[in-house]
């Protein structure tokens, strides 16, 4: 049993006074894919944004509870949210490379912002490493200085993944990363997820139970802000304990 990289204990989130994540607890072991599935509006994306303190940028958000990243509570008073975000990478629902930057600069911006490298050569190597990890290097190595906006949707999403990886995060959060992609691009991203989990744990938000079944080791079912059930994916899909989970998997809710 690998050790847990991320532990969530009694997490609550309010948005403008509305209770959208209700007393959620779960553990994410190292080198696994942990899927958060549930219908739209169930609070999955909000929950995900609590795990890298991204909710801090919204004044209407209030978070209570504990999120332990390798044993450190990221919400304890002495912790800098920027320190947290550097260690927790994030990929979004819309492929969102920065449209005004080149492919290279999109990957380099994280290391530059955080002064991770000392020389141009070191940065070149890091950019290449991240693009290779994201299965994008071969497609873009001859046009690194082209605007990122010219890539296809699937390539843009892999570029967003490379951008997150360049910071060498300890955990990767993915918020419905294939929701806006075609089936071929989706398959590529799912292969990539399987490859990446050999090194870091991935928390994947998805509204598709099929995707959770395909890629996740653990699955949590979130319904109206409450964690209905969590466990190994095989068990959740074959022997759900809660009738709500069963009804969701049968597409009855």
């Amino acid at each position, binding site marked *: 049993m690998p050790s847990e990289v991320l532990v969530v204990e009694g997490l609550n989130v309010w948005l403008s006074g509305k209770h959208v994540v209700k007393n959620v607890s779960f553990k994410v072991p190292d080198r696994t894919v942990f899927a958060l599935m549930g219908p739209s509006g169930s609070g999955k994306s909000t929950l995900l944004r609590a795990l890298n303190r991204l909710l801090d940028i919204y004044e209407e958000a209030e978070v209570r509870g504990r999120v332990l990243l390798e044993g450190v509570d990221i919400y304890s008073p002495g912790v800098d949210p920027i320190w947290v975000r550097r260690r927790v990478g994030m990929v979004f629902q819309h492929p*969102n490379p*920065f449209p005004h930057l080149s492919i290279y600069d999109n990957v380099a911006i*994280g290391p530059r*912002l955080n002064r991770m490298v000392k020389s141009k050569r070191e940065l070149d190597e890091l950019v290449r490493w991240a693009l290779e990890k994201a299965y994008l290097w071969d497609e873009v190595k001859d046009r690194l200085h082209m605007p990122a906006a010219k890539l296809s949707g699937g390539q843009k999403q892999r570029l967003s993944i490379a*951008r997150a990886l360049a910071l060498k995060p300890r955990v990767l959060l993915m918020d419905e990363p294939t929701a806006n992609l075609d089936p071929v691009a989706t398959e590529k991203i799912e292969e990539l997820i399987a490859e990446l989990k050999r090194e870091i744990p991935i928390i994947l938000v998805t509204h598709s139970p099929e995707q959770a079944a395909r890629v996740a080791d653990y699955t949590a079912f979130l319904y109206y802000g409450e964690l209905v059930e969590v466990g190994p994916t095989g068990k959740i899909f074959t022997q759900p304990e809660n009738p709500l989970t069963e009804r969701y998997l049968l597409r009855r809710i």
Partner: protein
Amino acid sequence: MEPRDPSLRRRRLLDRLGLAVLAGLAGAALLPLLHILYTVAVNGAAAIARSGLVEFLTAPPRPLDPENPGGIGPALLGSLWLIALSAAIGVPLAVFAGVFIAEFRRAGLSRLVLLLSLLLVEFPTILVGLYVYTVYVLPRQRATGGVGEGYSLLAGALALALVMMPYVAVQVSEALRGVPRELREAAFSLGASRLKTVYRVLLGVARRGILVGVLIGLAKAAGETAPLLFTIGGGFEAYPRSPLQHGGAVPLLIYEYIQQAQPGYHQLAWGASLVLLALVSGIMLASRLLVRRVRL
């Protein structure tokens, strides 16, 4: 459908009639604008042709000399000074204010800045001129002691900056707010601070909207007359040697010359009108062409 639907003819007729009415009304709305452009172009071109374009743009005016009417050089130089100075003063402040309004909404002060900017956008510009006269021109006049002292291009640029700033600030804040939420989140998720998110990512993504706002602000400043009435002091014959001295401006020259009796003045005013129109439309056109749109 019946091939001889009796109502079909009527409906087609009504359709054409409706279209004709719409086109007519649209034309009526455009007609005054086109007529202005036409009048300025015809009268202006005739006036400029009498001197020659280069002469008209560079020479001092000789309104009473029918053989050699000169041009609007000193006023144009004054206008260029005013545009450059008001941009140098107003644009950085307005961009900061716009960033503050859009990105630091948590602060109550930011809402106040927005409210004031929206209010000042519609503020009568003559009051801005009066204000700069009171707080800047008059004290300098008292200090130097002479009547007619204290006026300067710098004072005019201050007034123009005040006219332009609220508009540019609101445009900048609008452009920043138009940046998709996930791009902003992506910047933060990479460990960027709020300030770095603004200047490394958001200003870049919104650059087109920002530059268009700035250029339209400049065009607005270039065409204003009222803020200059009590501030720059005029003087259309001599070239301003420094922005700390009084000087003229193209809109003010038009205002003064068109009120004179002799036709020589009127012709110079018409020529100046065409130059002003070209200047303002040139800035507007540049704002459309200069910046490639950032494709999302």
